[in-house]
């Protein structure tokens, strides 16, 4: 066994422990997971109340509404991504740990996605049902949300790292992240609308997949740099 082989488990064990810790924390405080979900359901419920119960109209706006609601729910949970770690000092421990910071940043994004992105995807069918969206379209909607929320978790971690420790960070975070999230929203929502209209699905999904990989290669490093800057 070479020394490189021994270094490898170390590189993985730190991020793994971080994911497990964040998952346990989320289980202990279910409100952190549930509140964005309730928010998602509530925003989705506001639209029929505001625009009227016409079935045709709801089917038409359904995918877009669900996508916007999901985007906002993700933003809501992003604000606290590094907040607890910042307040109790574990963030500083991450900065000085021998594990490369981008790996830890990636782990934080993964934990965030597990506790907020994945649940959103899982409750989507229930809400899609109330919008009379057909089963096959719901499947595509879940698929686009699955890919889109991964990108949003990664992209959002950059914004969360930049605004951690700032007062009134929530509004600022939205201002930073929403314009950057526009491509994900456009491709996610339009792909579902296209499928609902009987069009092909491949183009949009390919884009969303490619965007996940772009964010995977950019976001952890940007987040790590931002965390170092925010924690001086």
């Amino acid at each position, binding site marked *: 066994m070479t020394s490189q082989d021994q270094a490898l488990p170390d590189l993985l064990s730190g991020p793994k422990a971080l994911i497990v810790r964040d998952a346990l924390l989320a289980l202990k405080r279910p409100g952190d997971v549930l509140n964005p979900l309730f928010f998602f359901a509530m925003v989705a419920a506001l639209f029929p109340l505001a625009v009227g119960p016409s079935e045709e109209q709801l089917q038409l706006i359904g995918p877009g509404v669900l996508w916007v609601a999901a985007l906002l729910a993700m933003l809501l949970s992003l604000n606290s991504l590094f907040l607890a770690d910042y307040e109790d000092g574990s963030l500083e421990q991450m900065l000085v740990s021998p594990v490369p910071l981008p790996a830890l940043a990636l782990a934080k994004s993964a934990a965030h996605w597990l506790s907020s992105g994945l649940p959103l995807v899982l409750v989507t069918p229930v809400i899609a049902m109330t919008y009379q969206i057909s089963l096959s379209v719901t499947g595509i909607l879940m698929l686009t949300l699955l890919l889109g929320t991964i990108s949003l978790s990664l*992209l959002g971690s*950059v914004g969360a790292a*930049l*605004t951690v420790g*700032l*007062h*009134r*960070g929530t509004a*600022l975070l939205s*201002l*930073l992240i*929403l*314009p*950057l999230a*526009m*491509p994900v929203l*456009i*491709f996610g929502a*339009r792909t579902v609308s*296209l499928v609902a209209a009987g069009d092909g699905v491949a*183009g949009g999904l390919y*884009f969303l997949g490619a*965007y996940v990989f*772009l964010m995977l290669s*950019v*976001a952890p490093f*940007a987040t790590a*740099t*931002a965390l170092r*800057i*925010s924690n*001086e």
Partner: protein
Amino acid sequence: MWKFVHKLASPPHFYHIAANLISWFAMPGLLLIGYGTYAGLFVAPPDYQQGDAFRIIYVHVPAAYLSMMAYMAMAISAGIGLIWRIKLAHAVAAAVAPLGAWFTFLALATGSIWGRPMWGTWWEWGDPRLTSELVLLFLYFGYMALRNAIDSTSKADRASAVLALVGAVNVPIIHFSVEWWSSLHQGPTLVRQGGPAMDTAMLYPLLAMILGFTFIFGALLLRRVRAEVLYRERRKRWVRDLILSGKGKR
């Protein structure tokens, strides 16, 4: 060459050189814009489809072009500042942002005024260029808001640099996604502006305007960077000496 660059990057030298450079940028800029405005408004023939309304492109196109160039310039100088820790680069990035936002606003406003007689509405979501200019404006706002939210200048410099770089990666993607989005939309048939077959009597004023706007942008930027440098170096000895000698006013 390197020596010159290095010298220019030192704040006191920049402060003095920029004072002279401003007029070297402003003069050709004003001349070109003067020629472009005259030729564009009175010499160029009216477009056979759009009539005289096409003349709006003489201000719209340079503004839109510079709004994007400014974002690239901001991201590049922010990156230089972040990687090589050059203070002047951060000052440039800080000074570009508001200018870029103004030019983006100008591109949006003139585009919207052009749209009124052409499309019959002030705003058309189906047009990809206007929509991506709008997103660009939000990007500038986000950048400036982050800068304002952080008290320490050096921290604000580096944090906003990260944002500018992530934004620069996204700008082409935003543009592409908005194009894709509007290509699916059955909007009004857009009257394409110009194209390669543009008459030279129409083209030359446009080129003059683009070049002139770039020069003027350079002059405005130099002026802003000068003020920014002076503010950032306010506790340095050279600024003290400059003020006591009373020479730095202009």
